[in-house]
């Protein structure tokens, strides 16, 4: 958790969107934050629904208005407008899914940063802040459009000032809106993946064996890249990878690329896992095995 105004040393390496999120059982779930783009898209989608609903609602009220019952319709319209504008986000996020329809579509969810239950107060706080994030710049824009060039400088200043709130998520590491900051929430991606098939158990046939030198070429990073290649199953990439590995390990070409890679994957995985068991984890092909808890051996 950071506050954008406080200077901190920049983290080394590429900026990741994964954040640690420790459950009461003490396991780190490693949530992935929603990107600024997907959040903007979700917001636009929600706004679109709100605007379309409002327009349809207004047209319906206007046509019925001529038929009589004016008072009830006017009240309905006023209340409907108010609830849609202020309640749409809050009411959906207070529900069990913690997401508006737009967020669900984009696979996002609002979560309390401390891992506790998302309270009604937090949801109201984060959405009331939309008043200054969205409606304030909009009203300044509208004012300028209405008055022409009445006071261009003042309008520019007002736009800049309110723009700070609008673009706030881009200025901090955790992509927090002003509302998220006040409410102690953040927006995370909801992943819903299926369990891929077991690559190693698949083959019921004699496997190829590999020399120590051939298996010593790669580390965990390369193993998992190989896993991706095998799971994607694209023939050209399988052929390329097989050629590279054969070339490096000095193994002769024998035609069956997929079978070769599957066997190599199984053998490499088994070898690296046996290393894990005794506390040696080899991250990638450049690194020497690291003893957990110890120093890097050079």
């Amino acid at each position, binding site marked *: 958790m950071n*506050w954008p*105004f406080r200077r901190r040393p920049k983290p080394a390496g590429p900026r990741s969107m994964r954040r640690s999120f420790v*459950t009461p*059982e003490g*396991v780190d*779930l*490693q949530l992935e934050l929603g990107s600024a783009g997907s959040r903007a898209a979700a917001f636009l989608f929600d706004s679109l629904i709100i605007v379309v609903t409002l327009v349809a609602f207004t047209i319906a009220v206007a046509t019925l208005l001529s038929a009589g019952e004016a*008072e009830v319709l*006017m*009240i309905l319209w*006023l209340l409907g407008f*108010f609830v849609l*504008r*202020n309640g749409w986000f809050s009411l959906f996020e*207070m529900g*069990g*899914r*913690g997401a508006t329809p737009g967020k669900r579509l984009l696979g996002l969810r609002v*979560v309390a*940063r401390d*891992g*506790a*239950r998302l*309270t*009604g*107060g*937090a949801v*109201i706080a984060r959405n*009331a*802040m*939309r*008043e*200054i994030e969205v*409606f304030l710049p909009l009203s300044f824009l509208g004012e300028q459009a209405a008055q022409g060039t009445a006071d261009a400088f003042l309008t520019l200043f007002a736009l800049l000032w309110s723009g700070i709130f609008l673009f706030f998520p881009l200025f901090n590491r955790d992509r927090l809106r*002003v509302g998220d*900051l006040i*409410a*102690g929430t953040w927006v995370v991606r909801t*992943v*819903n*993946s299926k*369990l*891929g098939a077991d*690559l190693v*158990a698949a083959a019921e046939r*004699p*496997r190829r*064996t590999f020399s120590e030198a051939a298996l010593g070429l790669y580390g965990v990073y390369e193993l998992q890249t190989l*896993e991706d290649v095998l*799971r994607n199953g694209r023939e050209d990439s399988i052929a390329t990878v097989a050629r590279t590995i054969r070339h490096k390990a000095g193994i002769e070409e024998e035609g069956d690329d997929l079978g070769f890679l599957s066997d190599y994957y*199984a*053998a490499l995985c*088994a070898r*690296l*896992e*046996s*290393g*894990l*068991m005794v506390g*040696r984890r080899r991250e990638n092909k450049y690194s020497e095995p690291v003893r957990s808890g110890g120093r890097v051996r050079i």
Partner: protein
Amino acid sequence: MTVQTSAIPTSAILEARPALVNATRFRAAHQDDWERLDGLLTRIEKRSIRALPEEDLLALPLLYRTTLSSLSVARDTSLDRSLIVYLEQLCTRAYFQIYGVQTSAWRQIGRFFARGWPEAVQALWRETLVCVLLTAASAVVAYLLVRGDPSWFFGIIPEGLAGGRDPSASTESLRATLYDRQEKMLATFATFLFTHNSQIAIFSFALGFAFAVPTVLLIAYNGLMLGAFFAVFAAKGLGWNLAGWLMIHGTTEIFAICLSGAAGLRIGTAIAFPGRETRTEAAVRAGRSAAVAMAGTVIMLAVAGLLEGIGRQTVIDDTSRFLIGGGALAGWLLYFYLPRGRTAR
């Protein structure tokens, strides 16, 4: 789980066929549990937690813990990324269903009225006092200014809002604005007042983020308008009557505006002066409780809208107006500040 050391030559793996890598063993042992949890979660996510039969509901936490420990073990012993990613998302989804789920809507509403709202308002007492004093002070300033020089009135009140109620108006026309009945569209008027004022309350809460300065201005301006109108009516000897006209709904409405201003003030001061906490912690604590108070002011403004739109138009007797307004204020004060026994939340 058999431990293989790297000393064993790689060809030996060929013979150890049933347990080539950890992921295989692991999947064989636990996959049924994971798939059952996956199925339960999908059903909850598609419909709701109520869709589950009791036996599945009881199994849910157990399956969650099993899967969580599977994830820990898999991270340390297995290199099958697909397996780890699958377990991570499964645990995350289960976590949100088990820890993140809200209590029922009625329970939440009940708690809000019983404890949440009054406690949030009590926590804001200092800021509320500041807002009330600020309103009063600005009203006095505006009153003195306009009494001294009526042209100030036009500097404070926009023409549209004055609606003829300015220093040049006659006593009769001013009296008429206080007591004339408007028969038509009373309820619409009440609704309009409610939505308009609520929007301002939410806005003043949100503006608190800009170090509370705009909120303070909003509250002060509210007071100025109050004072300016008083000056106009008092000059014609209608001060008491205006007080009644304002009291009937104003006690509720001005109190609500002060509370929403206090909520904004709280956020602004928490960010500017976080004290011992970090700035983020202070902002979150202030934000969550102030938001509850702010949500409450929307309810107060609904009441004020009813009193203003309907009550004021039908009750035109000054004493009744004072009684209703005073009663409402006493009611709010008792509700918010009456000490309650502290129980565990």
